[in-house]
């Protein structure tokens, strides 16, 4: 992973998952979790307040600064992700030779991990409820 820590914010060709052809956008995304093997999970960062059914964390201003983001309010979406094999979809920042904007503080990354685990556990519980007795 070229030494990038969990919480690194990189420029990434993110696909929202709507199935539309124009679904791709180069945007800052946080690498929060490295999966098994070369798999990496990317979570999108957005200036827009997420829809009602999305789970997201507002990124505090100090965390935005540490991550190299602008000062406007931004959210890290918990309930959507792209999983790719590193470094697929990672692109250099325009005019630079690195994709790295900065790194989110570890305390914020911990909060994100808890929120993500909660989303996953909720899904697993719902799946269990649907199993036949």
């Amino acid at each position, binding site marked *: 992973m070229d030494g990038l820590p969990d919480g690194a914010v990189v420029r990434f060709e993110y696909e929202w998952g709507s199935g539309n052809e124009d679904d791709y956008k180069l945007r800052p995304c946080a690498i929060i979790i490295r999966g098994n093997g070369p798999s990496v999970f990317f979570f999108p960062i957005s200036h827009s307040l997420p829809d009602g059914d999305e789970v997201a964390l507002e990124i505090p201003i100090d965390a935005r600064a540490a991550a190299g983001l602008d000062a406007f309010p931004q959210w890290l979406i918990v309930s959507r992700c792209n999983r790719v*094999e590193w470094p697929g979809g990672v692109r250099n920042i325009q005019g630079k030779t690195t994709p790295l904007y900065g790194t989110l503080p570890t305390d914020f990354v911990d909060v994100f991990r808890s929120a993500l685990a909660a989303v996953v556990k909720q899904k697993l519980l719902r799946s269990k409820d649907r199993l036949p007795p």
Partner: protein
Amino acid sequence: MRSVSSAEAARTFGAIREEVVTPGAEPVTVTHYNIPQVVVISFLEYRDLVRRSRFAGKVADLPEEDLAFLSTIDRRNARP
């Protein structure tokens, strides 16, 4: 796969573009000093390639093995 030099690609890019967007057409490789450096493919083929190798969507729709991995992510320390 058809291969052209970078000089030829610069001269005939319009024709190469039309060639690669034809359904079922092969990509075109562009060489520089005989070394393959660039592949020209259609936008749609590029999207297919990217989509084939990634998951994109809601976390809740991830395959079970990913959900199992992520369900314990809060117990793993983010600190190096």
